[in-house]
């Protein structure tokens, strides 16, 4: 464990923080074998329900559970209010930035962000230039990764504005906790999250093309072999919308249709869980089997809404991340409520020199990377790994950013040896449509290996139920 990490449950003197007192007393009163039985029950339920994910690079069809920890991550009402306000502000600014980048580009002309950082970025989609999207919303669903540092303050680690995943675990974890320990919910007033699918559907319907009275929404998935397929099927079912693959859709007369048993049916809003590159073989990757030929032209004509919009990757690119606090000032005239993590931008010679001199103390990330792939954690790396990464950085400094190794906060977690602190983060889901909605809490991810800071499920992370206590 990193020294000085903030413990979400315990004060330095070992007593419980106020919002954990009720839970702490309950936990102490539990027989250890009851908890053990419940943990085993949770595992077998997750398997039976098939809440599994595929891991890239493993055998085709390999399915694993994301480990679920039964100790909840609890947030008191006042902390959540602060977080929520900060998240709303940040996502408003990010949507304003996307509108600007694909229209006037005022922020580039004002010299706040270097133009080449946008215009030469592979995440910038020239096809979107000058296209109006309903309500000026690009990032309809945003997953903002937030961590608490040793000073107890929240920092935004990453904005996920393309196809953020994990919300199904937020919902299933809550369902599981209520099933395993119903008495806990009688003792605490935990803000509900179960209505997320309703809010999401309403949000998607609110951004339908202008003039469509009763919009038809579908979720576009890459298919059953995608690592997040469970979530796609789950959300489609919960919202009562069709789960479609590219082969189920076609374009005719400037509209997108689903192939149904009763003939073609028009589609108005596509909640896509496919990256931009694969959406339309005519416009992007020509060999994509996942997308729909001609989709982009229908989209550009304003005859279908795609959520999230094409081209949102420019706003969550790690090379743009350092500028988000300035965006908030530029577009909203406000001071940021949530801070960034201090970031070294390696295209700047000073930052590069500092980073190379302190590599063993820093976390280095590829600017286009995601999911914990392609990143260096200095303190955990071997000499050889550091040297190899140094070469990669020197070959293309602009491709990387670096951040100090944050002492992420910890939360007690059941591991083989019993209850022990493990590092956690938080991904709240921010929905933007006619208005902004955030279901209280989000997904708490936990790094299960002792001392590890990597919470990604693809890298052995687990999850916890997240409680926001009502005031």
């Amino acid at each position, binding site marked *: 464990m990193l020294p000085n990490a903030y413990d979400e449950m315990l004060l330095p003197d070992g007593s419980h923080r106020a919002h954990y007192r009720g839970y702490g007393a309950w936990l102490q009163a539990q027989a250890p074998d009851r908890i053990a039985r419940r943990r085993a029950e949770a595992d077998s339920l997750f398997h039976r*329900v098939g809440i599994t994910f595929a891991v890239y690079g493993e055998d085709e069809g390999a399915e694993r559970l994301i480990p679920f920890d039964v100790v909840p991550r609890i947030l008191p009402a006042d902390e959540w209010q602060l977080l929520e306000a900060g998240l709303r502000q940040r996502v408003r600014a990010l949507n304003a930035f996307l509108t600007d980048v694909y229209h006037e580009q005022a922020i580039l002309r004002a010299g706040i962000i270097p133009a080449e950082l946008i215009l030469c970025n592979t995440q910038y989609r020239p096809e979107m230039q000058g296209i109006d999207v309903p309500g000026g919303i690009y990032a309809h669903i945003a997953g903002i990764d937030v961590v608490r540092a040793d000073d107890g303050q929240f920092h935004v680690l990453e904005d996920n504005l393309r196809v953020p995943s994990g919300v199904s675990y937020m919902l299933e974890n809550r369902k599981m906790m209520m099933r395993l320990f119903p008495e806990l919910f009688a003792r605490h007033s935990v803000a509900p999250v179960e209505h997320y699918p309703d809010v999401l559907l309403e949000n998607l319907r609110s951004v339908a093309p202008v003039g469509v009275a009763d919009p038809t929404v579908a979720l576009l998935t890459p298919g059953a072999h995608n690592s997040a397929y469970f979530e796609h099927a*789950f959300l489609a079912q919960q919202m009562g919308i069709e789960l479609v693959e590219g082969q189920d859709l076609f374009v005719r007369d400037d509209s997108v249709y689903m192939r149904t048993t009763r003939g073609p049916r028009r589609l108005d809003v596509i909640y896509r869980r496919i990256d931009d590159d694969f959406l339309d073989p005519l416009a992007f990757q020509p060999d994509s089997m996942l997308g729909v030929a001609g989709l982009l032209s229908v989209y550009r004509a304003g005859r279908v809404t795609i959520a999230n919009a094409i081209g949102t990757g420019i706003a969550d690119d790690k090379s743009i991340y350092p500028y988000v606090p300035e965006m908030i000032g530029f577009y909203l005239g406000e001071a940021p409520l949530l801070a960034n993590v201090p970031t070294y931008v390696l295209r700047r010679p000073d930052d590069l020199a500092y980073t190379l001199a302190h590599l063993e103390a820093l976390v280095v990330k590829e600017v286009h990377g995601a999911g914990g792939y392609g990143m260096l954690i200095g303190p955990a790396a071997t000499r050889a790994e550091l040297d190899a990464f140094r070469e990669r950085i020197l070959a293309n400094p602009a491709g990387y950013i670096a951040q100090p190794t944050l002492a992420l906060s910890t939360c007690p977690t059941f591991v083989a040896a019993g209850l022990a602190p493990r590092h956690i983060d938080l991904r709240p889901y921010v929905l933007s449509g006619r208005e902004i909605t955030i279901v209280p809490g989000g997904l708490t991810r936990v790094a299960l290996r002792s001392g590890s800071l990597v919470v990604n499920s693809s890298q052995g992370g687990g999850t916890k139920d997240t409680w926001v206590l009502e005031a």
Partner: protein
Amino acid sequence: MLSRTADHLFWMSRQIERAESLARILDAHYRHALLPHTADVVARDWRATLSSLGVFDAYRARHPTFSPATAFRFLAFDRNHGGSIVSCLWAARENARAVRGTITSEMWETLNATWLEIRGYEPEASDGAIGDFLEWVRYRAHLSRGVTLGTMLRDEAFRFTRIGTFLEGADATARMLLARARSGQMPADEPAGPDAYVWTLLLRSLSAFEVYRRVYRDAVTPWRVTELLVLREDLPRSLHRCASEIYSNLCAVANDQSAETERRAGELQSAFRFGRLEHLLAPGLADFLGGFLAQVGDLGDRIAQDFLVPVTPH
């Protein structure tokens, strides 16, 4: 609903039904094998069972000789043979997984649990274990049927699962009867002498023995067994029942291009509803069943064409 979804539902229910039918066929086989037989008869019986399933050549391509253990493993546990029980349950589960948003969570959990259980399961070749296994397959099929009937909205999705179930059921009953038919002959309307036992076994493996007793209150004759399995509309697995279900469910999902398929399904049902057994069987039982299997195959193809193959844009 999406054509692809309908396709998955159709095949999901066919595969469950097929797994159950295989268990019934193997069950009939093993009950028969309990009679005293020479090795020749045992081999002949396996050949008859494999042929009636249409997998005789596939078996021979893999195994040069017959042994009861090899044949059983081939039909029950061979993951490389698409027609084995384990492959059917896998395919049913994969189809369900592709449409888990359309079926109820209870259905998905039932099919998934079936798969999780069979995955690590291979009974030893002792007859007791095989019997337990076959009973387990039938039990899981009962559960799947129960959860479908008990939880699913009676919408288009439900209709397509029913069409799949009864097309497969019609196919299975016809094949089981076919295994008992002698080429060019009518089934006899008198107790079948030394052969009587196979007809009783056929009834038992279709869960129809007690029904037979209740309906006829008389000795088992091949003619009456045939009549029961072909013409009785109130017997769940009879050809008449299956044809009626196919027709009525097809009518409920009819679209612009399905009129001819409906007509053919209706024609098939009418033959059972208004036909006499002696007319139906005029060409001999084997030829009649061969013709019926061809009609069922044709309906399956036409349904795929009308509903399941994605409509082409132009």
